[in-house]
């Protein structure tokens, strides 16, 4: 019935359609063949990086973590300059706070330094020397960009009676130190060889690095807090809300797996100042300790402080029965910091 109408032109409709298809196809092919370069400019070809979820602009020698760190650095710089502007408009452009905030923002550097092969970090603490001053805990807050309002402190220091060393008599809230009959035990993440926190993490957001540092990927953490429950040392802390950090006190030396600014509802903990130690520095708690009770080094290096301490004085770990094999050692050093009574009449301390 359709053929009747088309037959007027001397062709069946089917033949006409066939001819048109052939002509169209041929012209398309020739168009593509001739104007391929032009077409390439119009259409963006898909890249393998895009399909695999990597960015096209990522260079071949940049790892995924480095890319993430670079993005984070841009984000933090933006946030920081916004905060700095607020301070500047409130206190004036010439105020020292404004200048300090701007300087810190310009210094922000988020690193992704990988673990050095053959390095195994460990820390040791001399219980005979520790005076329980909690400076390590406070310096840690500064160094690791911790919240200033929720009183999150990664290091907790407990006082234990010297005579019996009874765990039931430990006190976290002592206000006077050092006392003659007490020893002080600072505790943070023990960076265990078999970390229970890593075992329970349902999304593998926390893992052990080859150099022995247990880290958390804050972007992967879902905030389930299983790890907090699993840790036998109570080393992990939770950000219940957005951390408050004054820009004038921001530590610009950041590591993507360490002290980079955290989002709310993620777990955080000590990373042995990964932003310092991975690059050859010394953790902030070790640096600030006024009596030099802490030591930090590479277990594999025979000249390291840790090897020296273990060989010379012997060391023990907390809760060995938990089977976690901590890499944070405690030891009783050769000399005790002199008891406070001897000099108590002199002054009331510098604070």
């Amino acid at each position: 019935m359709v053929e009747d109408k088309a037959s007027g032109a001397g062709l069946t409709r089917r033949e006409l359609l066939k001819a048109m298809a052939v002509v169209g196809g041929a012209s398309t092919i020739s168009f593509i063949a001739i104007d391929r370069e032009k077409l390439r400019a119009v259409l963006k070809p898909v890249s393998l990086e895009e399909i695999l979820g990597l960015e096209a602009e990522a260079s071949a020698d940049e790892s995924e973590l480095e890319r993430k760190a670079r993005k984070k650095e841009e984000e933090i710089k933006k946030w920081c300059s916004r905060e700095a502007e607020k301070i500047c408009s409130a206190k004036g452009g010439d105020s020292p706070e404004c200048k300090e905030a701007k300087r810190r923002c310009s210094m922000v550097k988020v690193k992704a330094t990988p673990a050095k092969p053959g390095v195994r970090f460990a820390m040791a603490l001399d219980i005979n020397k520790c005076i329980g001053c909690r400076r390590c805990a406070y310096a840690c807050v500064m160094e690791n960009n911790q919240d200033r309002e929720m009183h999150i402190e990664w290091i907790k220091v407990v006082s234990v009676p010297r005579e019996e060393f009874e765990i039931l008599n430990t006190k976290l809230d002592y206000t006077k130190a050092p006392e003659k009959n007490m020893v002080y035990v600072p505790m943070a993440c023990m960076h265990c060889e078999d970390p229970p926190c890593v075992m329970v993490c349902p999304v593998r957001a926390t893992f052990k690095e080859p150099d022995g540092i247990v880290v958390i990927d804050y972007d992967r953490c879902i905030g389930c807090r299983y790890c907090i429950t699993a840790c036998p040392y109570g080393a992990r802390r939770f950000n219940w809300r957005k951390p408050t950090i004054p820009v004038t006190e921001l530590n610009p030396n950041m590591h993507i797996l360490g002290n980079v600014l955290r989002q709310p509802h993620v777990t955080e903990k000590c990373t042995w100042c990964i932003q310092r130690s991975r690059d050859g520095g010394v953790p902030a708690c070790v640096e600030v300790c006024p009596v030099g009770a802490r030591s930090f080094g590479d277990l594999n290096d025979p000249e390291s402080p840790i090897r020296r301490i273990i060989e010379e004085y012997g060391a023990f770990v907390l809760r060995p029965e938990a089977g976690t094999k901590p890499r944070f050692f405690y030891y009783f050093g050769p000399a005790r910091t002199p008891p406070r009574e001897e000099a108590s009449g002199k002054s009331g301390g510098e604070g």
Partner: protein
Amino acid sequence: MKHVTVIRPALALAFIAVLLAGYIADASQYRDPDKYQFYPCSQCHATMKVTGMVKKQPFHGIDLTKGAHAGLYCVNCHAAPQVDRLKTRNGYVDIAIPGLMGHEELMKLNKVCERCHPQTYRDYMHLAHANKTYTCSGGSVEIVKGYKGIAYDFHVCSEYKNLAMKPAKACVECHDPHVGVYPAISIMPPHSERPAPPPEETIAYGLIAAVTAGLALLLTSVALASHTSRQ
């Protein structure tokens, strides 16, 4: 008369030195500057011949009859007759005064301590004793007032890479060689501002909540029972 003209500039110098010492943070933080009188050592010691078993030197306020170094005499460390030189294990080193001389000068004195404290010196060299810090090339350290008022070392580096760990202080920057033991009180930081937890007797919320919830449950069950029986 000649004697007096020598002493007057010396006293003036001493006064300036004491003032200076007051301004240098380490000296004022850890030591009592009045106790020490700083002079150009050679002014007196070039001609002075000190020998023998001396234990007290009132002019410098030194008394070796007490303290951790009570067993020593001056000549155990100072090279007589010119006492402005100190003995090391295999040689001598010039004297340096904490608070007046720089860190590098004071580091040279560590060798003097090594003679009697080899174990501690080895610990120190292994970074297992005393304070540690790190440096970066071209960087500097600013001491800022940190969280809860503690002094915090803010490192200013361009890249924060290739850092180097090293001892932060020389022996004499912490230990007074004439007293030996460092008083603990002067390094006490401020107390924690964290509030103490409330006493256990005052925590009654759990009990009240349990009683309230129990009553609510009871009332609901009674109400439900009466409702179903009416139906």
